[in-house]
């Protein structure tokens, strides 16, 4: 899941200041799960914007809608009848959603309402943790399904560092030591011998090293005749 947090209200207020009509567009997938850009958050931010405008004596019409996904053409395209009616779009999607939206509606002013943060999991209600860096070469099979790149503060592939105390990280004692978890899980599965191997450094050229990445699959593409 892509996680995000809402931008500070003062920043949003400044962004939308030039406009008198605004469509707030949420995304019901990742950012809804992390309670920053779903239908509820669209309603909350829209209400805040309307009240703020009233308090400042400003005219502002705020529309609200939420798409199932804001990063896929077929979903974004459904807003064709609405987009032209507003001066600007305030997108509560991740950065990918904001850009997809502006690509599909090139004439529209699309503003980001969220700060996209990381790939993570919902650990419990109200708690989201980063656990994937999208390095482009998953190594979880060696590390008992715990990623040392994302979850070890030192990103060690040949750990542990030795600084862990009571199973907690020495960099941040509030965070469990990833390598402690790796060792414990390898022990549980009887695979401690994996610790004897030397793992090569992560090839970061597979991540952002060559600019924006793309995935292209012929079997998924629509045939053009």
């Amino acid at each position, binding site marked *: 899941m892509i996680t995000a947090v809402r931008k500070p*209200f003062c920043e949003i207020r400044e962004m939308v200041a030039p406009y008198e009509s605004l469509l707030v567009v949420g995304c019901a997938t990742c950012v809804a799960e992390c309670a920053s850009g779903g239908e*509820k958050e669209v309603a*909350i931010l829209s*209400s*805040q914007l309307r*009240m703020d405008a*009233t*308090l400042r004596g400003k005219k502002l019409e705020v529309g609200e809608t939420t798409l199932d996904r804001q990063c896929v053409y077929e979903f974004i395209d459904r807003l064709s009848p609405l987009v032209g009616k507003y001066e600007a779009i305030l997108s509560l999607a991740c950065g990918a959603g904001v850009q997809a939206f502006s690509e599909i509606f090139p004439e529209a002013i699309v503003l980001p309402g969220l700060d996209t943060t990381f790939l993570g999991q919902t650990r419990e209600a109200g708690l989201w943790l980063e656990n994937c860096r999208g390095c482009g070469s998953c190594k979880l099979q060696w590390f008992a399904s715990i990623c040392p790149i994302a979850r070890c503060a030192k990103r060690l592939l040949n750990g542990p560092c030795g600084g862990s105390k009571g199973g907690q990280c020495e960099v941040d004692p509030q965070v469990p030591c990833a390598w402690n978890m790796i060792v414990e899980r390898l022990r549980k599965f009887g695979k401690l011998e994996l610790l004897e191997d030397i793992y090569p450094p992560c090839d970061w050229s597979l991540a952002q090293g060559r600019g924006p990445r793309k995935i292209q699959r012929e079997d998924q593409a629509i045939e053009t005749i």
Partner: protein
Amino acid sequence: MIEPDQEARIAFFFCQRLDPGQDKNRRSLEMEFGPSVVFYPMPCGGRVETIHLLRALEGGADRVVVITCPRGQCRYGEGNLRAQKRLKYAKNLVHEIGLEPERLEFRAVPLVSASRIDEIIRPILLEPWNLGPSPLRRVPRKR
């Protein structure tokens, strides 16, 4: 203190379990205070969402009060705690736009078999209230 003929508008969100007879018992207040007091009975305090509180303010309420049972007495576990957390969150949102967070209030009332919602709410209506009308009211209400 809110007199029946004053302009103040108060929205009460409350757990119906505080008074199973609330539907009947709140009528006396509705008759006395008219549209100045609006009631939103909830099946549990946990049903209250942040957006409900914002919409009440946006709709022109001067004061929004959430009433639940105290910690440890929620039939459904932690509805009262959720209501309190959401109200706290709503206070931050309200503060961001420059409105007084004190317009949102949380009250925990002991769950006793003889409680009546009008007897719970009347003392709240009689309390001193200094914030005055909400600046969000664009058009003064007609009497």
